[in-house]
């Protein structure tokens, strides 16, 4: 078993099965980022603009984490 990593991802067949899921989730988060950015850029008041920016950054960081997890060997 690989030390320090998730147990599920230690087995090659499990890793291969999880990779497409991570990719798809990452893409979903990316689309969510784009939508939140569009809403933040067109928000009418400062408060909702900040909320949308926060959602965009959370979605972006999730997407980065998912893509990094996918590319990990």
């Amino acid at each position: 078993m690989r030390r320090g990593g998730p147990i599920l991802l230690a087995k090659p067949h499990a890793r291969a099965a999880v990779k497409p899921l991570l990719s798809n989730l990452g893409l979903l988060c990316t689309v969510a980022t784009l939508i939140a950015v569009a809403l933040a850029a067109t928000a009418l008041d400062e408060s909702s603009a900040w909320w949308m920016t926060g959602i965009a950054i959370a979605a972006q960081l999730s997407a980065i984490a998912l893509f990094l997890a996918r590319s990990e060997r």
Partner: protein
Amino acid sequence: MVTKIIWAFLFALIANGIAEWILARDLQQPINNLSRPRQTLRLARWVVSSLFICWIASVSSSLLYFIPFALFTTSAATDLETKYLPPDAFTYGSVVIGLAVCFSTGGWVGLRHGLIAQAACFALWTLGVAFFRLCDAGDIKLAMQFGAVCGSLPNVGLALMVVWLAACTVVLIATLLGLRDKPPRQAIQQAATLRPPQGPLLWCGVVALFFLPNLMRGLL
């Protein structure tokens, strides 16, 4: 103004020095191991980027902008020479520094604009890679850095227009060079499939951001 130019020259030296260090250590390409033409290219990059940074210093209002710009120069330089980017820590760190500069120059609103700009670049480049294979996966980090340097969505749009013009110019020059020894149809096909490194093209867009507003003000 002289003080600003001296500071900008120092930033240029530091940025090129970091690029040199990354190229020598991470990408295994120290200058003394290169062929003569590539040594010339590297020296030309030192001179051109330093001259541009000093020139921009003479027209720019704040020196703070030069920190993210100098870091972006480093990424663009390594991309130009090797088609590889600096390590993740450098590019993500540069994004954070770019956002810090946005905050220090524009307050919370400036920070929000910077966050939106880099998130938009991230999303657009990721979808471009995933669905259209427009660039390599590493270019997404570069795009985030580009967004943080631009600082707001209108600036990103303006810079991307200049990037598009620069890409068209590269294709045009490649076509003209190809016409010397190929029939026109083949030369155009070859130029159309050319994939220039994104770093230098995006760098041209960021440079344009510094002087385009002054130019427009002068024209109007």
